[in-house]
Structure formats: structure tokens, C-alpha cells
């Protein structure tokens, strides 16, 4: 009783006074947990797969909703800033694929490791980065998560290894991280992501072999958003069953637009790895609304109808919202309240990102090597030497 009154006051604080409407329904009205039926995963080299009946609690639902909404709004803001030329260079947006990042993170710990390619803004957030740091990195300012030196593709956190521009290059790295986990005996694993285009790179197959041979705790995740830049999967791959490509590695094909599916599959995969059975491969079938990057309108290789269809039938945020509302786990106003809060957070972050100063010139040559004492870097002329600190 006291708890629900306290919750009401918290909610009132959110909406700055106009929340009395909400307090008409106390929180004891909401269902705290509900069971959902999710899609069965396609299995490869596995006798049984993830559960098809899952439990979602109200708190979890609200947290996933909020996280996905932050990611969505952050990407849309980045789109806006890019068009205003505040962000330049390359910017690969993640909207549409939020369920993958949130679902994955829900079943692993922050102490586990994750590495992905260049569509990283979402993962940087779920792995511990703040929206302010992410946006400041996009605009190349000193408050950015990589001090403004990396940009859109190169963002990192303590257990998030980026942020890699060269396609496929991150996969062997991920296996190496997993080897270190094994070696250090800390029961951690590494989630190693790549896309449907990257799945055709040679390094990935080399990594499958090493991971299976040495039973590394790697979860390979192929985020199949159907298009490698502008090339559809049918035109690029001899086999579009990406979850079977591991050949001797067990695989799962998961509906990547449903956060509950992704969460359950990841839970299954994480158990598999942690029990010492070796690597496992998950193909997340997902979709991106934007083009490959901001220089790609995304319409020359797919139709507007297709995008609209996915948006209206399988949008991850809409699906979660639907689940929660239909099972009385939240109210429309509450979710709207979260939306407003998220919008404000993103606005503040964008404000920071556009006003923070750029990194100082001295930063140009820092962090090339690890060195003590600082050394000099040859510059564009004989007599120009800049100092490199690390």
C-alpha cells in the first residue's frame, strides 16, 4: 500500500504535476507478471531450443520499453543532426533493430563481453554508454565516448569492444576475447555480432573453426536485416540460412523483432556457452528502417511498401507496447510519460553534443602507442613535431 503510494508520487514527479489523472489507477491495478507465447526458433544441430512460453514482469517490460525508446529517439535525433550537417562522415542507424540489442543485453551480464561491427549506437547505450556521450562522439566533441576521435563507428565501453569499421574483422577478435574468458576462468562469455553481408567474409569461417575446436564461450550473432548495404541476401549468399553456416556449430534462427524472443534465445545460448559446450550461433531476423548509412536513402533496393509493412506489423517497440497494454501491465499514459521523458533526455544530449567544444589540437597525436615518457610524432614538415601522450 505504502509502496504503491510512493510509486504514485514518483510518477507525479515525472509529469511535473499534471499526473493526477494517472494516480486514479494505482499500481496495484497492473499485472506484475504475465506469460507470453513466443515464436519457436529454427534449430540446427540442437535437440531442443529456447522455451516458447516466457514470463515478462512489469518492471522488465518498462525497462525494455524505455531502453528501446531511447535508442529509437537517439537514432532519429542523429538523423536530424546529420541532415543539419552537425554530424558528418558516416552514420549507420539502428532504428528497427532495437529488440536485438535490448534482448541480448537482457540475458547477459554487464561483465560479459560484446563486440559488433559499425552499427553501434544502440549497443553502446545498452552496454553502459550514456546518450550524451554517444551523441557527442557523433558530433566529434571532447565529451564523446571516444574523446571525439572515433566518430559514429568507433564507440567503446568497458566490456564493449566496439565499433569496428572493417567488415568481418571483429569476429576473430570476439573469439579471442572468449578465449581470454576461458583462460581467466571467470565464467564470462563473448557475444560476437556481424551482419548478413559480413557472413560471407573468410575470417568468419576461420573463427568458427577456432571457436569450435577450442570450445570457446562465444555466441556468434548474425544480425540479418536482409540487406548488406543495397544487396539483398538472395543475391549475396549461396545459403541464406545463416544460422546453419557454422556447419559444426549449433545454430538458432530467432525472430529479431520480438524482444522476448531474442531474450529467451540469448538465455538459451548463454547457458549453452557457460556449461562448457562451446560456441553457438544465433541468426536474428531483423530489419532496419533507415538505409545502410545516412548517404543511402534506402529506397533503391527495397520498396516503401516493404518498409511500411515491417513498421506496421513487426515494429519492436509497438509489439512490446501491445503486449504490455493488452495484458494490463502498463497504461497508455504511463508509456506516454516515458516517451516524454526520453524525448527530453535526447534533447538535452543533443544540446550537449552540439555545444561541447571539439577536442584540443594536442589530441591529434595522443594515444598512438602506449608510451612513457611522451614521444614526438613527425609532422607534415621536417621541423614539425607534435607530442604524443598516452
Amino acid at each position, binding site marked *: 500500500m505504502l509502496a504503491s503510494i510512493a510509486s504514485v508520487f514518483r510518477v507525479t514527479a515525472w509529469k511535473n504535476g499534471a499526473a493526477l489523472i494517472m494516480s486514479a489507477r494505482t499500481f496495484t491495478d497492473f499485472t506484475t507478471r504475465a506469460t507470453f507465447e513466443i515464436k519457436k526458433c529454427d534449430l540446427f544441430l540442437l535437440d531442443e531450443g529456447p522455451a516458447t512460453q516466457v514470463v515478462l514482469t512489469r518492471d522488465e517490460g518498462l525497462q525494455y520499453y524505455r531502453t528501446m525508446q531511447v535508442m529509437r529517439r537517439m537514432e532519429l535525433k542523429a538523423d536530424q543532426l546529420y541532415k543539419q*550537417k*552537425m554530424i*558528418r*562522415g*558516416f552514420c549507420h542507424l539502428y532504428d528497427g533493430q532495437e529488440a536485438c540489442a535490448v534482448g541480448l543485453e537482457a540475458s547477459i551480464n554487464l561483465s560479459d563481453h560484446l563486440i559488433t561491427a559499425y552499427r553501434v549506437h544502440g549497443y553502446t547505450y545498452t552496454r553502459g554508454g550514456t546518450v550524451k556521450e554517444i551523441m557527442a562522439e557523433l558530433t*566529434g566533441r571532447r565529451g564523446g565516448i571516444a574523446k*571525439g*576521435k*572515433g*566518430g559514429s*563507428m*568507433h564507440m567503446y565501453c568497458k566490456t564493449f569492444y566496439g565499433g569496428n*569499421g*572493417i*567488415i*568481418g574483422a571483429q569476429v576473430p577478435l570476439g573469439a579471442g576475447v572468449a578465449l581470454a574468458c576461458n583462460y581467466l576462468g571467470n565464467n564470462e562469455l563473448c557475444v560476437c555480432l556481424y551482419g548478413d*553481408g*559480413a557472413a*560471407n*567474409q*573468410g*575470417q568468419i569461417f576461420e573463427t568458427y573453426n577456432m571457436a569450435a575446436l577450442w570450445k570457446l564461450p562465444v555466441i556468434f550473432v548474425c544480425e540479418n536485416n536482409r540487406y*548488406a*548495404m*543495397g*544487396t539483398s541476401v538472395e*543475391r*549475396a*549468399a549461396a545459403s541464406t540460412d545463416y544460422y546453419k553456416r557454422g556447419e559444426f556449430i549449433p545454430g538458432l534462427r530467432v525472430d529479431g523483432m520480438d524482444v522476448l524472443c531474442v531474450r529467451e534465445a540469448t538465455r538459451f545460448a548463454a547457458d549453452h556457452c557457460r556449461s562448457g559446450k562451446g560456441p553457438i550461433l544465433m541468426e536474428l531476423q531483423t530489419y532496419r528502417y533507415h538505409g545502410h548509412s545516412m548517404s543511402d536513402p534506402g529506397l*533503391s533496393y527495397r520498396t516503401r511498401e516493404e518498409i511500411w509493412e515491417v513498421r506496421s506489423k513487426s515494429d519492436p517497440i509497438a509489439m512490446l507496447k501491445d503486449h504490455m497494454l493488452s495484458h494490463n501491465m502498463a497504461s497508455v499514459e504511463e508509456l506516454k510519460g516515458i516517451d516524454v521523458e526520453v524525448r527530453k533526455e535526447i534533447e538535452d544530449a543533443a544540446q550537449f553534443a*552540439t*555545444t561541447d*567544444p*571539439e*577536442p584540443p*589540437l*594536442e*589530441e*591529434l*597525436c595522443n594515444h*598512438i602507442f602506449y608510451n612513457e615518457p611522451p614521444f614526438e*610524432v*613527425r*609532422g*607534415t*614538415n*621536417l*621541423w*614539425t*613535431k*607534435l*607530442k604524443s601522450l598516452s
Partner: protein
Amino acid sequence: MAAAARLFLRGANSKLSIAPGSLGTTHAAHFTFQPDPVPSQYGPTQKMNLFQSITSALDNTLASDPTAVIFGEDVAFGGVFRCTVGLRDKYGKDRVFNTPLCEQGIVGFGIGVAVAGATAIAEIQFADYIFPAFDQIVNEAAKYRYRSGNMFDCGNLTIRAPWGCVGHGSLYHSQSPEAFFAHCPGLKVVIPRSPIQAKGLLLSCIADKNPCIFFEPKILYRAAVEQVPEDPYTIPLSQAEVLQEGSDVTLVAWGTQIHVLKEVASMAQEKLGVSCEVIDLQTILPWDIETVCKSVVKTGRLLISHEAPVTGGFASEISSTVQEECFLNLEAPISRVCGYDTPFPHIFEPFYIPDKWKCFEAIKKMINY
């Protein structure tokens, strides 16, 4: 050092201010494209930019050589830089086709196509992505003829890749890796400065019986417009071109940097009364030692400039050879105005690239040595 940095910034006036929030200034290009006069000896010409001149060269090749095939990532619809627009429709999908995302596979496959006797023109989407294919290029393509005692060769292979800084490319869309390949005997490395040169040099590379890597300055794809001959023509490889004669300083560069140096030459003439000889090296490997040395013997001073980092950049090879050949003719140490020894930066690009002010400063120092 900080003082030197400030000096450059002051000298650079509007273009390079890295003041907080000064965003509009990063858009200005660091060079002005200077078109060549219309060539009269190759027949009727048409206005084309760099990517159109490449398309024209490829069109001529596919028309005259029935074994020629073009492949790479996204070439079928025209390529991310529109270099292969219209070719698939004109010549068929068995001659212009997409490969999956696998650079090592693309080049390896290309070597095979070339060895079997067809003309292979492989595209690597950005020169920054050529490294997975580095083993195939250096260990297989370059050494094929040598190791088989001339029984086999992959001379029919030409690899094309967009190259160099573009204003916002950051670490992995701006690299100039010519120095890595210059270290490999058996390959030819060619970099054009303009559409007319590009078409002629590309056709020479395709015709050349050695594996060639053709780097195309991506910042010039749209910016460089010239009257380019429609018919095929070749420009000889391994011949540097003297663009402007002079008597006091020799300036050597290739690709986009030539346009920077041309501007530097006119600045030097105007402000210092110094007469510069500008040489476009064009072919990096094997490079035209004679032309450069003859020029240095005449002027006594040499400045080499490229975007790639200074340590181990190709300027070091030129510098070393020139001092061997022309030691007693040198009036001042050879100057290399190149990129810093850092990865190609994201936000610091305007400061990183060897722009005209840095080159101008280097000339001043050489003259007053």
C-alpha cells in the same frame, strides 16, 4: 610545437579554424581542381568527370576485348561511386557482376580469371578495405610470373580502388595505401590526377601485361571535370609528367595533391618570385626516376607531398633515391610534406592533411636554407 601549430592555423586563415563549434569551415576543400587543356590528338571529346571517364574507359575495354569482365561489390547497379553505370545493361550480367563481401576472395578470384586468360578488372570498394586482399596481391599476384619462370602470369588483372581523403572519410574511408604496395616487386601502382589522365592510365593498366593497382582519388570523382576523348587512348605507364617547368624548386606529387601543388607553385611565384617545376609521378611503381632526377639536377631543390603518413610513405623512397643520384646538386635537404604519423583522423582531418600552406612554408624554408 604548439606555436608552429598556431602559425599554420593563422596562415591558413579561414579554412582551418578548429575553434569550438566552428562547423561550417570543415566543408571547404583543401584544393581547387585545375583541368588540363583539351587534348586534340585523340579525336572528339566530351565533358566528363572522373567517374564518367572511368566508365568510358571500362566501356571501351568491354567493347574491344571480349574476354574482359568487371566484378566487385555493388558494381552491377553502377557502383557506389557510379563508375560502372550502364555497363551491365550494355554488356550483360555475365560480364559485369557483383561479388559477395569478400575482398580476399575478390582478388584471389581475379587472379584466377587473369591466369586463365581473361581480362579481369576487380573493384575494391574503398582502398581502406584492400587489406584482407593484401596477401593475395603481394604473395600471389605479384609473384606469379617470377615463381613459375614465366610459364604463368596474371598480367590480365587490374584492381581499381577509390583512394585518398574526401573531407569526411575518417579512419576507414580516406587511406592512401600506395606505399604498402610500392614495396612489392611484380606489381604496378598507378594514380591519376584528372579524368583525362584516369582514362588513359586505366586503359594502359588494363592493356599492361602485369597486375596493376589503379587508385582513383575519390574526392575528384565529381569535382574534377574535363573534356575527355571518347575513343580509347593510352597514356604510358612509368612516365612522370612535367606539368609546369621551373628553375628553382621541383615539386612532386600524385593524385589530388597535384592540384594542391599547382596552387602552391603559383603562390610561390607570386609571393616569393620562386619558379617551381611541378611533376605528376602518375606511376608509383615502377616510378620514373629519370624525370625526377633530371629536374632536381636543374633546380637543386625537391619537395614531395602526399596525404599518407610521412614515415615509410612513398616520399621516403623518392627522397632516398634522389639524394643518391643528385647529392651534389642539392641546395637544400629534400622536403617531405605529408600526413602526420597517426591513423587518418576523424575530426582533425583539416589539420592533418598536407595543404598548400604547409607546402608553401616548406618551400620558403628550402629557399632560405
